[in-house]
């Protein structure tokens, strides 16, 4: 599904990713943990193709394609989805209109028939129920005046509608209350399948009680410094990151 090999990337001449390798097979859930500023969000941005970040070395294969060759929107249409740590607002553009345009673009690329407005509205309403987002949010501007938790649920709503192959969730759990955490986890679990993979970036082992990962990685100073199964998350919770310092160096 995704094969990252020795990825190096910088932003504004500052090296952030320093030789990161990671292999993700279809159906797998990988959790990425690590200290603040380690480069977790940067990894998401680089995979999604954000312009400000330049790849200086390494390669990334995504579903048999050279990911780094594709534009941002092409990666999205190929099935790469990034749930943002800090979702931005687009004032005046209704959420419904935005979602429809997005789903239309992705379906068109994948050769699927366009959904009529009626079909789409029905689907959007049903899906928003699943993430416990009131229908009023579909009419409001994209993320406009949404609370932190509402923005995160809106990201999950988008993910469910787009049915991506690879979902990167960047701290989707931060800022969520306990019920919302459950809702988001339910959403993710419902989407788990043999063909779909997840990268879940989080600081808290608690999320991983709900979304049980196949692998847990520690990202520090731009590299994966330790990998393990879900028990690694528990260990990190207990010991913090300092015991790994030797491996960082």
């Amino acid at each position: 599904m995704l094969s990252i090999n020795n990825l190096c990337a910088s932003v504004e001449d500052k090296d952030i990713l320093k030789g990161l390798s990671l292999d993700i097979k279809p159906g797998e859930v990988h959790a990425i943990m690590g200290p603040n500023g380690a480069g977790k969000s940067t990894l998401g941005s680089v995979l999604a193709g954000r312009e400000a970040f330049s790849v200086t070395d390494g390669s990334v294969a995504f579903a048999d394609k050279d990911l780094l060759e594709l534009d941002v929107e092409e990666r999205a249409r190929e099935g790469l989805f990034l749930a943002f740590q800090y979702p931005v607002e687009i004032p005046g553009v209704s959420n419904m209109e935005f979602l429809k345009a997005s789903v239309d673009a992705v379906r068109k690329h994948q050769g699927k028939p366009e959904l009529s407005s009626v079909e789409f509205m029905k689907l959007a309403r049903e899906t928003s129920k699943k993430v416990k987002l009131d229908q009023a949010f579909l009419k409001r501007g994209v993320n406009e005046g949404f609370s932190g938790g509402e923005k995160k649920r809106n990201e999950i709503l988008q993910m469910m509608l787009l049915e991506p192959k690879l979902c990167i969730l960047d701290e989707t759990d931060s800022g969520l209350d306990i019920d919302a955490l459950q809702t988001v986890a339910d959403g993710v679990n419902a989407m788990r399948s043999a063909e779909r993979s997840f990268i879940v970036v989080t600081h808290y082992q608690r999320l991983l009680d709900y979304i049980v990962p196949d692998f847990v990685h520690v990202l520090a100073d731009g590299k994966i410094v330790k990998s393990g199964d879900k028990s690694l998350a528990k260990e990190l919770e207990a010991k913090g990151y300092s015991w790994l310092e030797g491996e960082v160096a």
Partner: protein
Amino acid sequence: MSEQVEHLIRKEYAAGFHTAIDTDTLPPGLNEEVVRFISAKKNEPEWLLEWRLQAFRAWQEMEEPEWAHVDYPKVDYQAISYFSSPKSMEDKPKSLDEVDPKLLETYEKLGIPLHEQEMLAGVAMDVVFDSVSVVTTFREKLEEAGVLFCSISEAVEKYPELVKQHLGSVVPQKDNYFAALNSAVFSDGSFVYIPKGVRCPMELSTYFRINEQNTGQFERTLIVAEEGAYVSYLEGCTAPMRDENQLHAAVVELVAKDNAEIKYSTVQNWYPGDENGKGGIYNFVTKRGVCHTRAKISWTQVETGSAVTWKYPSCVLRGDHSVGEFYSVALTNNYQQADTGTKMIHIGKNTRSTIISKGISAGKSQNCYRGLVRMNPGAEGARNYTQCDSLLIGDRCGAHTFPYIESKNPSAVIEHEATTSKVSDDQMFLCQQRGLDAEKAVSMIVNGFCREVFKELPMEFAVEAGKLLEVSLEGSVG
């Protein structure tokens, strides 16, 4: 802004074709003889010729204004032809069947559904081609309601008293340089009269088209809503692509008597010139309305075309409790320049005005809001709310705001808010990460920015305006 936005995609101006039609065009130049010729051509009564000549003499004494934040080579008024009429109009068509099929083809190309059966239900339309009004549809249905909707030339012939009473009553001949020029040489335009207590049964609409080379268009529109009457009126404008600049100097006058309401919407898409700033229309327009007691006038404009725009639709709130509104979207791209805004003159007590202006600048364009809110000494309890938002696309364009406030009544309340924002990289990234291409992303963000104004437009035109923005923005991103 970011590199991606620098990359340009070109799309031709969709309305930029020219129709080959035999025309009767006056040679370039302007003098008293030309004014007399136009007047004679239209069989005008003596008083109107006199009125024109007064305006012409005043114009000769006036200087072209230079205070606007626009920069263009001086217009040579002697190089313009002041009258052009399709030859086949010489004996006026009585019905659509008699109209030159080539003309009808032009309108079809423009996407204007002229034939009644194709028309958007409930839209009556007057079409002005170069200088002459071609046909007015739906006339009978309107006549039943007592609504008069025809070209201004026809109104001069048929309803001289109404025209004489109101022409120049809102925008006097000597109001300003371009208004004086228009008063001297106006060739045609629309006339609307809604009798007392009548709610006009349909939207009224005029499409203006400049076709001939080196001709100016000087239309004159007059709308009178008697006591308690209501009308919603829409004008649309296009022109062929030409390397030379062409002049458009229109005057629109609105009279809203007691308790009347006039909604005036404009979708202006004159040819803006090419991406190097060559050609395009100079759009120097004077629009003003007078509100009597409890009357209301709303101006809604979507301005995407023209090389240079100089336009300030205004409301004189003469009657107590009268209301003025101005909703504007002005988009400039490439080398376009727009200096536009409004004047709200509060004379009566408890008068209210709202100004919502959305300026979007892309490319190397300059976009300027200029607005005056004046509270006269008698404007007890008057209120104004102004909101001016500017959106920048890229970093080579400019946005400017010049709000003028004159308050001579201490009880008047004036609120002003202004913001300037950019289409942010974060917003673009979100849209593209969700599969939208850059052009779609920008047009969506811009449409969202304009939403408050679009919702004031009649439904079908709001859709049209949204599409127009999309086309006008092409080339601003990629």
